[in-house]
C-alpha cells in the first residue's frame, strides 16, 4: 500500500519503512521554533527538570515577534528570558526585534526549514512551513521543551485529506480565498487530527507566498499539518536560502486519502470570513457596505511582499476614508526593506496609513492595534474568534489584501473589482 507525503516524512523521521494513520511514533525533529510567548515557559520547564544541557542548539530557532518591542514589564521579562537562553545555549538562529520579523515568515525566508524536514514550533501556525513539502506542526510549550530535550516528538500519524483545485483564479482572487473557501466547506473542525494535502493546477500556478498563506490556515480547520508537492516553484524558492541537502517526498499513486475534495475555482469571488469564525465565509459582495473602523494588512498569513504589492496596487494615489485607520505590517524586516525600495511603504503612508515594524501587530490582540468594544475590523489575518484582537464585542472580518486595501479607501467593506 502506498503512502502519502505526510506519512512518508513521518516514517523516515521515525526510522520506519512504513507508517499507518493512527499509529503513534517517536519522530526525530529537524527544527524547533519558539517565540516570546512560548519560549520562556519552555525554558523554565527545561531548567526546572535539569534538561538544558540536552538541548541541541543547532535545531532551535528563537524569534521575538508577538509583543516586541515590549509593551510592559511582563513582556520585557519574556524577551529577556529568550535572550538569556539564546546566549546561554549559543543559539545561532535567534532573531531579536528588528532582525527577523514574524517567525513563520522568517523561517522559510532564511532557509531554516527545508522540503522533507520535520519541524515543530511553539505556535499553532507552525503548519505554514508545510507549503515547502515538509511536515510542520504547532504544539504547546511543554511539548516544545520536550522536543528540545529529546530531539524527537511523539506523533500520531494523521489521516490525510486531499484537496484538489482545478481551474484558474480570477482577478483579485488569491490563495487566501482558496483556503477560506476550503475552511468554509469543511468547517473549523473539518480536519482535526488530520493532514491536509493541497494539489491541482491552481496550486501549481500559485507563487510560494500564497502557498504559505494556504498552509498557514490549515490550523483554522483544526488540521495537524498541511503539505503541498514540491515543484519548480518550491525549488526556486529554496535555492539560495537552504544551504543543506534536502529530500523531496511525494504521495504515491496508490496512497490512501481519507477523503478527497475537489474545487472548481474559476468562479470563486474574493471572499471574507465574517465574525466570529474563520469558517463563516461569504462572497465579498454579500457583506459589502459594512462600515469598518480599522483595516490591518499584515500577519504571518498575509504580510508577505506579494501581499503588500497587491494592497499598494489598489491604494496607489488614494487616501483612506475619513475616520478609519489603516495599519500595515510587513511580516519580516527583509520584506519591509524591499517594500521601502519599491515605494510600497510610501503608498501606504501617503494614503494615511501607519506602517509598523515587523511583528504580529494587532493579530493576537496583545499589542498594537487592539480593538475596542463594538469596533469593526477588516484584517488579512487568519482568525476572528471572539475577543481575538481585543474586546469580545469587536467584530473582525478576514479577507485578502486586495479587499483590505479597497476597504481602507472607502471605509466600508468593498469589492476590489469595483474600485
Amino acid at each position, binding site marked *: 500500500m502506498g503512502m502519502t507525503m505526510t506519512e512518508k516524512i513521518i516514517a523516515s523521521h521515525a526510522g520506519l519503512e512504513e507508517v499507518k494513520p493512527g499509529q*503513534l511514533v517517536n519522530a526525530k525533529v529537524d527544527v524547533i521554533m519558539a517565540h516570546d*510567548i*512560548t519560549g*520562556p*515557559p519552555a525554558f*523554565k*520547564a527545561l531548567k*526546572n*527538570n535539569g*534538561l538544558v*544541557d*540536552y*538541548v*541541541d*542548539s*543547532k535545531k532551535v530557532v528563537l524569534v521575538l515577534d*508577538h*509583543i516586541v518591542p515590549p509593551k*510592559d514589564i*511582563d*513582556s520585557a521579562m*519574556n524577551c529577556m528570558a529568550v535572550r538569556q537562553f539564546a546566549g546561554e545555549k*549559543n543559539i545561532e538562529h535567534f532573531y531579536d526585534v528588528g532582525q527577523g520579523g514574524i517567525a513563520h515568515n522568517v523561517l522559510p525566508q532564511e532557509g531554516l526549514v527545508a522540503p522533507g524536514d520535520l519541524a515543530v514550533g*511553539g*505556535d*499553532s501556525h*507552525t503548519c505554514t512551513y508545510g507549503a515547502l513539502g515538509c511536515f510542520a506542526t*504547532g*504544539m*504547546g*510549550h*511543554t*511539548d516544545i*521543551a*520536550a522536543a528540545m*530535550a*529529546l*530531539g524527537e516528538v*511523539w506523533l*500520531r500519524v494523521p489521516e490525510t485529506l486531499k484537496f484538489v483545485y482545478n481551474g484558474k483564479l480570477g482577478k483579485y482572487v488569491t490563495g487566501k480565498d482558496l483556503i477560506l473557501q476550503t475552511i468554509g466547506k469543511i468547517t*473549523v*473542525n473539518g480536519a*482535526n*487530527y488530520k493532514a491536509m494535502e493541497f494539489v491541482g493546477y491552481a496550486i501549481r500556478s500559485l507563487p510560494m507566498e500564497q502557498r504559505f498563506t494556504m498552509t498557514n490556515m490549515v*490550523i483554522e480547520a*483544526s488540521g*495537524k499539518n498541511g503539505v503541498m508537492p514540491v515543484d519548480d516553484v518550491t525549488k526556486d524558492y529554496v535555492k539560495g536560502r537552504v544551504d543543506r541537502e534536502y529530500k523531496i517526498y511525494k504521495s504515491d499513486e496508490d496512497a490512501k486519502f481519507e477523503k478527497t475534495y475537489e474545487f472548481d475555482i474559476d468562479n470563486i469571488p474574493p471572499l471574507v470570513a465574517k465574525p466570529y*469564525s474563520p469558517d463563516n465565509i461569504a462572497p465579498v459582495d454579500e457583506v459589502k457596505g459594512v462600515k469598518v473602523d480599522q483595516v490591518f494588512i499584515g500577519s504571518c498569513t498575509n504580510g508577505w511582499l506579494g501581499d503588500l504589492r497587491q494592497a499598494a496596487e489598489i491604494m496607489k494615489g488614494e487616501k483612506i476614508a475619513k475616520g478609519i485607520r489603516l495599519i500595515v505590517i510587513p511580516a519580516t524586516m527583509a520584506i519591509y526593506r524591499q517594500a521601502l525600495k519599491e515605494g510600497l511603504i510610501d503608498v501606504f503612508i501617503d494614503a494615511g496609513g501607519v506602517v509598523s515594524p515587523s511583528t504580529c501587530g494587532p493579530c*493576537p*490582540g*496583545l499589542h498594537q492595534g*487592539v480593538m475596542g468594544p463594538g469596533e469593526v475590523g477588516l484584517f488579512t489575518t487568519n*482568525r476572528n*474568534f*471572539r*475577543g*481575538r*484582537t*481585543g474586546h*469580545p464585542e469587536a467584530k473582525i472580518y478576514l479577507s485578502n489584501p486586495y479587499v483590505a486595501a479597497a476597504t481602507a479607501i472607502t471605509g466600508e467593506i468593498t469589492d476590489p473589482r469595483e474600485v
Partner: protein
Amino acid sequence: MQLAGKAYKFGDNVDTDVIIPGKYLVTTDPARLAPHCMEGIDPEFAKKVQKGDMIFAGENFGCGSSREHAPIAIKASGASCVVAKNFARIFFRNAINIGLPILVCPEAVDYAKSGSSAKVDTERGIVDVDGKSFEADPFPEFITSIIQKGGLMEYVKERLKQKQVPVSSSA
C-alpha cells in the same frame, strides 16, 4: 482520581481565545490566569466555578492557538476536568502534558446540562451525570503512561535515561 462537581455546559468549537484571551498571555502563572478563565464566553465563569466543577463541551474543544495557558487557566480556576465530544489536538496534548484530566465522552456531553451534578472516575474512564453512567473513550496506552508518570517532562527524563547523553558539546 475521583472527581465530583457541578457541570458547566458549552457548545462546539470553544476556542482558546475565549478560554483565555490573548491579553493575559504575558504570564503562565496559574494564579494570574485563573480569574480570566473562559472570560470570552462566560465572563462570570471564574467567579462562579467551585472546586471540582467540570466543563462539558461539544466538538473540537480548545481549537485555535497553541497556548498552554488555556488548560493552565482551566486547572487553576478550580475546574477538575473537561469532558468533551472531542478535543482540538494541540489542546489535547497540552492538557495531558500539564495534568488536566480530559475525557472524550459524547453521550455524557449530550446528557449533561449546566448545573447537572457530575462525577468522574479518571482511571476507569467513567462519567456519571445526574446518576446516569457513561463510558469515556479510552486513551492509547502511551498517553495513559504519560498521565501516570505525572506529565510529559517526567516521561522525557525517563526517555533520556534510556537513550541519550547530554549534547552540551554542540552548545
